[in-house]
């Protein structure tokens, strides 16, 4: 059997992402390279620590051509208020020329924003998502000052309501298209999609297939068409994380333009 680390083309429905995760787990386990078995259809974040997700994003900068379709997909998915970018494609200049760096929330393992929140409105889940409870946020904006990645945005004015009114429970895990004035918001790694076994909107929106998303505990990431074994990518390629020296331990890895 082929090494699971190899890139394999999978023709699966993106909406079956999580079920597919289970299958991939079986494949990995069968190859004897994973110590755990995930035979049943998985359910998020329950049971033993082995089964717990550790969401991770990998962005291949060599593939990114700066088309910003990921920004568009994000905007559409979340009805992002005007003037905000939850995902932002930066244009950077290096000796080799300009390149692009899509910047979602880093969902840091040691998040400076969560540390400073006075009311526990922003927090880190067991699966490694840094989320915001919009019903709790007092709008002091300390987290915005603390974030080294300029990820967080604030609803200064009353945001536009979604075309169709929606009902959603006051749970930060749920995606919401109606936004509230006076609170801080940001990229949530599409937690509501993950819950349903779907990939984040930006991953699906990227025509270059540059964005991979997955679970570090299951050791793979996918861009919807192919899967990569994360540990192999990290050990064999020169991946980096944004501002790694700050000690924030981001969950977003980048594959550099030149390797």
């Amino acid at each position, binding site marked *: 059997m082929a090494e699971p680390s190899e890139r394999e083309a999978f023709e699966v429905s993106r909406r079956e992402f999580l079920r597919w995760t289970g299958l991939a787990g079986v494949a990995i386990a069968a190859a004897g390279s994973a110590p755990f078995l995930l035979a049943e259809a998985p359910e998020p974040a329950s049971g033993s620590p082995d089964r717990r997700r550790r969401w991770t994003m990998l962005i291949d900068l060599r593939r990114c051509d700066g088309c910003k379709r990921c920004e568009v997909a994000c905007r559409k998915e979340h009805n992002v208020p005007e003037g905000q970018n939850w995902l932002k494609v930066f244009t950077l200049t290096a000796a080799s020329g300009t390149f692009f760096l899509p910047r979602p929330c880093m969902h840091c393992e040691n998040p400076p924003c969560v540390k400073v929140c006075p009311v526990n409105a922003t927090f880190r889940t067991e699966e490694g998502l840094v989320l915001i409870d919009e019903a709790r*946020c007092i709008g002091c904006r300390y987290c915005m000052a603390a974030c080294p990645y300029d990820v967080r945005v604030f609803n200064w*004015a009353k945001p536009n309501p979604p075309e169709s009114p929606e009902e959603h429970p006051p749970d930060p895990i749920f995606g919401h298209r109606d936004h509230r004035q006076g609170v801080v918001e940001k990229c949530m790694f599409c937690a509501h999609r993950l819950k349903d076994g779907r990939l984040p909107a930006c991953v699906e929106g990227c025509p270059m297939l540059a964005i991979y998303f997955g679970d570090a505990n299951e050791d793979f990431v996918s861009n919807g068409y192919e899967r990569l074994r994360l540990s192999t990518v990290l050990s064999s390629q020169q991946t980096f994380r944004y501002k790694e020296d700050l000690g924030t331990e981001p969950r977003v890895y980048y594959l550099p333009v030149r390797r």
Partner: protein
Amino acid sequence: MAKIVVTHLEKSVMLPLVRPGRWYWALVGVLSAIVAWAAYAYTVQLQQGLVVTSMRDRISWGLYVSTFVFFIGISHAGTLVSAILRVTDANWRKPITRLAEAITVFALIVGASMVIIDLGRPDRLLYIAQFGRIESPILWDFTSITFYLTGSLLYLYLPLIPDLATLRDKMPVKARFRRWLYTRLAARWEGLPEQRRRLERALGAMAILIIPVAVSVHTVVSWIFGMTLRVGWHSTILGPYFVVGAIFSGVATLIIVMAGVRKLFHLEGIIKPIHFRNLGLMLLALDIVLLYFTLSEYLTAIYPGETQDVAWLTLLGSGQFAAMFWWMIIGGLIVPAVFVAVTRAKSVPAVVIAAILVNIGMWIERYLIVVPTMATPQTPSVIAPYWPSWVEWSVLAGAVAGFGLLLLAFCRFFPVISMWEVAEKAPTPLPEATPLPEPTPAEVAD
């Protein structure tokens, strides 16, 4: 019943309580109008949201937070003059302690309200008490400012008790409300030796307790900034820098308020040039310490030449904040120092002008701590330039006017000079070591 004797001192101090004069009401009128305008501006902000300010996503703190730091700073007037000078038994302090303590309380109230004005969801303010996370420096602030406000109120009230008893006994009979108020507040003070002993003990304890609380307050205010990963904030000097700056602007505010009250209520015989001179020299000393800290902070940042540090200091030294920065250094630190040094603080107007310059400079200094750091790029994000909107300027004007108004209201109901302390000829005897002093005739009116 014996005839009521009103001493000359009491007469001049109590006069504003009965007849504050035309200028007093004129001032109250002007300040009230400014506060009313600021209240209108705030209602606009409440209706439309913080979008009416100039703050945006990258420069997300601005004038409100700067003004918060500034007012918490001037609240340190009370601690220094009153507590430190009481602990060291400096007798010249007596006519100005009351003003210093009142400044502390009112500056804290105004400063704390600036934070509430800055909140996106002021209706959720109490979440800080309900869901507070002690890991957040905002909680440290909330705790220490609450402590400081409570302590300062107590520290304002305790030395007021003997004066309240005097007022209770000597206010005109027809001023019924006043007599009722002072009777309640005077806590049955009769000037008995045991009461005096207890008051002295309480004041001695409070003076020592309030000093570490005050130092902690401005230290944790600085730590709101210092605990982040941002250039210009993430610095160990920030705590002491804030504390010294706080005492500096506190002393300057005390000088300004002293001059105003002296003029308004004709207290030239009690608040004398010696008070301006001593405070002026203190201002000079603190000015020099602050210059030293400023040099230390900026030289340490610029010399190694780290990219972020250089970007930040370029904004200050020659970029968009250069005018304010050099005004702060020259107009707020060097010129006042020269003014006080050249006149040797013997001229009251010179000291007052220096104090006004210092306070303008210190407000700018707070602004320059908050805004330029946020204006220094930490990612390639677009940073919208920040200059406060009319709503923000109005709220600042309202904060200053509100502070003045609170002080004026205080002057209407309570003596601005600690009468019993001024009347004491000898230094306050130590409670345990000396025999109990007899009350002087000025304090016990029979």
